């Protein structure tokens, strides 16, 4: 009896936890139309399964608790009462029939939801974003018919509320999977394949996503952040991103820029308006406007930048960013420079 109580309480707890669960990276806290459809489908499945489970467990428990005991000596029942057998077998047949019907219904429902979540692919004038998976960061490029209007950033997206988004996804190395639970399910980025993916954010807020296909050492910290904001805010952000950051004026920043341009950084990173134009690592043109560094696994603050530059291999072992040694004041200058790339 105790076990059964515990199990029932677990089921209750399950409902509670599921009902209460939410957050910036949660599949049941939908902020977009697709996730919404998926969420409602989930609840149908969940309650059907819960009911079935409770019924089966009830039968099992009663079968165990019914007071018909025997031991290994008692004679086996080889010719049971046929009428009774027949009754039970009818019940079993009925149960099978019902489960077939239930399964069929669930199947139809999931097909319908599938159709619905794909229907958005006919939406007009979506924001086109090309996302390239790299070990272990996301290269983000807003595509615009006018090339000068393109935006290049990394690991962070800004999206206006209510406007459909079209992602073109590709991978440069291994298989990754783009997953933004609050908006939609996942889609794999497979080398040699170009995949497209549609979703529509409906609620403003900051959401997080993560690579969902095992891709090597830093699979765990291949994250990205998505800021959904009003159309105006988005436009403001986009306009800022299209600007080339002005050359630094204060001497410290100038020194920082000089260090940046003359040292390791330029081998991998690009800053628009300078000679740094490598595409190996994330684009740093507007690094200061991002809230996170290291693929959305650290807040973008002074000290984090410092540790990240000098000893990334401690924070994310195996990451492509090499360890660098700078004199303290050089490091300060460099970080100050980066912090002003707005």
């Amino acid at each position, binding site marked *: 009896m105790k076990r059964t109580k515990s199990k029932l309480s677990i089921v209750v707890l399950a409902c509670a936890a599921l009902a209460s669960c939410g957050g910036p990276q949660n599949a049941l806290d939908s902020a977009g139309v697709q996730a919404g459809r998926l969420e409602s489908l989930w609840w149908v499945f969940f309650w059907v399964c819960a009911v079935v489970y409770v019924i089966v467990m009830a039968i099992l428990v009663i079968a165990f608790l019914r007071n018909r005991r025997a031991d290994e000596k008692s004679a086996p029942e080889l010719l049971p009462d046929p009428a009774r057998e027949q009754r039970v077998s009818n019940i079993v047949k009925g149960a099978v029939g019902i489960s077939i019907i239930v399964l069929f219904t669930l199947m139809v429902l999931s097909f319908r939801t599938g159709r619905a979540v794909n229907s958005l692919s006919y939406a007009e004038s979506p924001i086109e974003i090309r996302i390239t998976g790299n070990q272990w960061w996301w290269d983000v490029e807003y595509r615009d018919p006018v090339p000068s209007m393109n935006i290049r950033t990394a690991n962070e997206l800004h999206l206006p509320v209510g406007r459909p988004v079209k992602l073109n996804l590709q991978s440069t190395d291994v298989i990754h999977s783009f997953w933004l639970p609050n908006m939609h399910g996942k889609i794999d980025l497979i080398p040699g394949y170009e995949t497209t993916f549609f979703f529509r954010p409906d609620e403003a807020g900051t959401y997080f996503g993560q690579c969902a296909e095992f891709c090597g*050492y830093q699979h765990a910290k291949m994250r990205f952040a998505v800021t959904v904001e009003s159309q105006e805010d988005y436009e403001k952000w986009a306009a800022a991103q299209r600007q080339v950051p002005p050359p630094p004026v204060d001497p410290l920043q100038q020194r920082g820029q000089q260090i940046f341009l003359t040292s390791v950084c330029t081998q*991998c990173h690009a800053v628009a308006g300078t000679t740094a134009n490598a595409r190996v690592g994330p684009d740093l043109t507007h690094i200061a406007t991002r809230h996170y560094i290291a693929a959305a696994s650290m807040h973008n603050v002074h000290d984090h930048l410092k540790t990240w530059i000098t000893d990334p291999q*401690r924070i994310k072992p*195996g990451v492509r960013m090499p*360890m660098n040694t700078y004199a303290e004041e050089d490091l300060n200058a460099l970080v100050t420079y980066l912090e002003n790339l707005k």
Partner: protein
Amino acid sequence: MKRAAVLIAIALLISCEREERGFRVQPPQADRINSKQLTTLQPGESIPQQVVVNEYEQNAFALTEGKRLFSQMNCVGCHANGGGSIGPALMDAKWIYGSQPDQIFATIVEGRPNGMPSFHGKLPDYQIWQLAAYVRSLSGQTPKDAAPGRNDNMQVKEPENSKDREKPNDASLPKSAERPE
């Protein structure tokens, strides 16, 4: 029994260095960058220079990292995939500035006349050593069990782990780069 134990120990050592993923390694011989000797002329007896061993040549991970850098630092731009175009080929036996690890290291750090740029301060030492190790794997100087396999792109050359060992002939190097006996 004892022999078995010994064998296991050996296997352990070998495999450890072969398979180690050195994320936070201190580069081997990091001090040698500026200690290059460009002439054999010197007062008194010449200093005996011991041969530098690059542990990365035994390490599969380091060699693969070197391979990645080789394309990402655009070495391919001149040396192609080792076949050579603007820059000299790296998969043959011919070495203008020496085939030894420290000589290759120096070539990368210092750059060489007629086009080889200097990567001094442009790469951390340990990555340059990884590059140097990979460059030697191009002509099969590294163990086949550690050298990188084929790439996931168009087949342009036989992969490093299938390359037979070239016999490096440093005869053709200019006096300046010769290592003093």
